[in-house]
């Protein structure tokens, strides 16, 4: 079939668009890696912000960003025009919670940087140096339309997992969108385990850690004490945290290393998000209550399988939630009330909800986010269930996670000025039979080829030919 060798999966009946798309592919082959001006016309455009799809819309990508999207958008002179009639055009999928890029093969320890069970550090751990943009999972998930991901470390010997990042899934060596976007901690069953055996201990550890961070004193005469910037700069820009300078004074009875305590200062100051994994309703309320004690905390709840039972409290606290979409089993005693209606009910109560993959193949399978979102639309037709509207379901895997992580102005929608992360689909992106036809990240068109497509093409016929399959490339 035409196009397969290029690793570009075209459907039969694609017809008139083939030429234009092939031209785009040819441009890709000679990839200058520079963003070009592209106008995608005629498609059903989904902005990703929860608004209705726009039929016959145009999306213009220029200088790596979305210049315009919607009806009646003019095609700039000189733009490469791609006819997407009959197609859907959307922002790329944003994986709301993942560990992609941190492992190649989960069970091969040498390739797995998700957690560090024997590290002396916890909160200070920063996933950025571990992210491998050439991990097979990056290319596989990119081919399914995932363009950005929130990447979290997992906890090892502490309730603090360390600092996560937001990345893109582009085929280049600069994956990081925002370094040190958040600190990740466990406060439910896993947190109790990490803290030595009880939830109460986890909270004691957390309070102690916050106080150790609070009590860190900047060295006298350090730049920030003179009112300039290091202590106030965006956390992702700070290469050397001033609180780890050797003459920062500390008392004797501390539990955290200086490095870990310093990493918690921006959390305490509200300059870095705190993502808290809890599932049980009572654990959710305990987490929300932390704001009374540490009022500047910027919390995001992760998991929250029983969130629907306290949805009004979460909404009142104005704390976003990143939840699994389809958890419906009492897989643990902290998820007894799990139901696939959790997200729909929280949303109906006014909670800001996104779909994530918490302990659910999150290092390799964030591509099923669309399937999960589609299921939440589907349950809306089952009496008693609370699902999501299609628009809201799609937002839950694009703009909502972007907003939750503080990047709503940058990614997750086709509003002007956002990063040029655009996907053309051959149908409804939430449907199971739909395929991705083209992906742009930061305005650069991406290859959709990966190990899996290469293996597929090699074994189209299992029997060896004149020469073994090893010669078939």
């Amino acid at each position: 079939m035409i196009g397969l060798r290029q690793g570009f999966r075209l459907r039969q009946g694609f017809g008139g668009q083939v030429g234009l798309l092939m031209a785009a592919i040819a441009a890709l082959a000679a990839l200058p890696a520079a963003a070009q001006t592209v106008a995608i016309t005629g498609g059903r455009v989904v902005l990703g912000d929860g608004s209705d799809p726009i039929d016959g819309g145009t999306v213009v990508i220029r200088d790596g960003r979305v210049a315009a999207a919607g009806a009646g958008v003019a095609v700039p002179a000189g733009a490469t025009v791609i006819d997407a009639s009959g197609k859907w055009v959307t922002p790329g999928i944003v994986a709301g919670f993942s560990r992609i890029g941190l492992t190649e093969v989960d069970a091969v320890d040498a390739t797995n940087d998700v957690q560090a069970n024997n590290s002396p550090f916890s909160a200070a751990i920063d996933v950025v140096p571990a992210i491998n943009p050439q991990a097979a999972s990056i290319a596989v998930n990119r081919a399914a339309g995932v363009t950005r991901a929130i990447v979290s470390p997992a906890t090892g010997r502490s309730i603090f997992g360390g600092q996560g990042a937001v990345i893109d899934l582009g085929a280049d060596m600069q994956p990081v969108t925002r370094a040190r976007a958040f600190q990740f901690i466990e406060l439910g069953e896993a947190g109790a385990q990490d803290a030595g055996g009880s939830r109460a201990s986890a909270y004691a550890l957390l309070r102690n850690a916050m106080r150790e961070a609070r009590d860190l004193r900047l060295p006298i005469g350090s730049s920030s004490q003179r009112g300039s910037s290091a202590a106030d700069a965006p956390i992702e820009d700070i290469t050397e945290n001033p609180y780890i300078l050797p003459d920062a004074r500390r008392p004797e009875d501390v539990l955290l290393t200086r490095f870990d305590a310093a990493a918690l200062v921006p959390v305490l100051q509200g300059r870095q998000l705190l993502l808290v994994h809890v599932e049980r309703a009572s654990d959710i309320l305990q987490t929300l209550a932390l704001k009374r004690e540490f009022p500047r905390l910027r919390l995001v709840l992760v998991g929250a399988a029983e969130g629907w039972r306290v949805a009004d409290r979460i909404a009142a606290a104005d704390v976003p939630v990143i939840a699994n979409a389809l958890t419906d089993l009492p897989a643990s005693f902290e998820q007894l009330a799990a139901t696939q209606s959790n997200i729909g009910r929280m949303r109906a109560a006014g909670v800001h909800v996104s779909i994530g993959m918490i302990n659910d193949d999150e290092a390799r399978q964030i591509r099923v986010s669309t399937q999960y979102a589609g299921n939440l639309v589907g349950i809306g037709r089952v009496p008693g269930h609370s699902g999501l509207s299609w628009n809201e379901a799609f937002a839950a895997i694009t703009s909502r996670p972007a907003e939750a992580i503080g990047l709503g102005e940058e990614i997750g929608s086709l509003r002007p000025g956002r990063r040029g992360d655009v996907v053309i689909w051959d149908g409804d992106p939430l449907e199971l039979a739909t395929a991705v036809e083209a992906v742009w990240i930061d305005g650069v068109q991406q290859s959709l080829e990966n190990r899996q497509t290469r293996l597929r093409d090699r074994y189209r016929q299992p029997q060896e030919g004149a020469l073994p399959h090893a010669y078939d490339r």
Partner: protein
Amino acid sequence: MKSGWSTVACAAALLAGCAGQGTERPASTSSTQTGADAPRSASDDPYPSTYRAYPGVVTAITGATIFDGEGGRIDNGTIVLADGRIQAVGGADTPVPEGATRIDGAGRWVTPGVIDVHSHLGDYPSPGVEAHSDGNEITSPVRPEVWAEHSVWPQDPGFSRALANGGVTTLQVLPGSANLFGGRGVTLRNVPARTVQAMRFPGAPRGLKIACGENPKRVYGGRNQMPQTRMGNIALMRQTWQRAAEYRDRRRREPNTARDMALETLAGALEGDILVHNHCYRADEMALMLDMAREFGFRISTFHHAVEAYKIADLLEDNGTCAAMWSDWWGFKMEAYDAVNENIPLVHNAGACAIVHSDDSNGIQRLNQEAAKALADGRRMGIDISDEVAWRWLGINPARALGIEDETGSLRPGKRADVVLWNGHPFSVYTRPQQVWIDGALLYDMNDPRLRPVSDFELGQPGEGDVK
């Protein structure tokens, strides 16, 4: 164990840490029972099925699109269920018995109940606490004497989710894959019950779970015990089959030979009474196992997980061995690294028997969706399979793999009335089961909250009786 790995670990990969280490055993309360009346062969049934079909009414679904599970499709079709069996299937002119409950199937789809050939429900139930970890007897790589049914906890809430969200009416519960010989599997009706006997599919042959590859060698190699390598896996398997063949022959010559529960299971497999289900990912290992089956005279019903089945689809076809597969799971361990999205259609396209399986308490709720993804990926590479033919992956093919194809797996008159009415096209993400019948009894109805099974475990807990 790495985070996020646990779901897969318990099922597909079975890291040692996931399996129960709490091996303290209470003193036996049962009396020793042996003697002349003791069963003597694998075909004897000391823990017989007590399953009885629940009552149903004569029911006719009309105007539906019917996928019959064998590859047939009827538009505007009618199906009649009576006395627990399928009475008639046909077009709009199919007679509806007087007094039948009529269900308007317009805009809806009817399929046979979904069959999962690979589940650990009951053996690794929810909640997944250590005390419930009953799927792997990791005390020897050769444990054919254990039976998965003796671990099944009928109160696992997972059974009801598989019914209500997945339309699953029959499932095989298998031991895990930590051992080369994991023990016997059991085929169950997906009905709530007090005992596992009351779930057992009457007359269904038992299975034998065997495993290739990484799991046995990791678990035992880590203890400096055989097998530590893949060649160790094969060597220990061959030695064991040889002992089984000798045991079988000796029992034939000398019926008073002392019973050996382990070898009895293997002798049953050699005689074909017990169907062999082989956890095996890699193509080269599947080819070795096919030779081993020839060497000792057993037949492998199905390779499970079979991530590389597409590389040897021709061998599978030649040997009449099924491959049970996921649509897109991959990469959680080395032997799952070479997955392709088109595995299932590629196997089907080679003429071999393809099956969609779950190995997972969540995946079992969406086997129709997994089939749909694989089907679409296959079509995009030019493998043209119709929707109704693809339903064989969930219908007659798994029934064949379990030896129950005369009883269920398709909508032929006379078969058990295991039927799902879907509220849309079952290959759409937006579709859910509307009603599910097992042996003609309506056991789930999305419009009737009273027909939502609630296990004892869930009673009195937050979320009891909720939609799930």
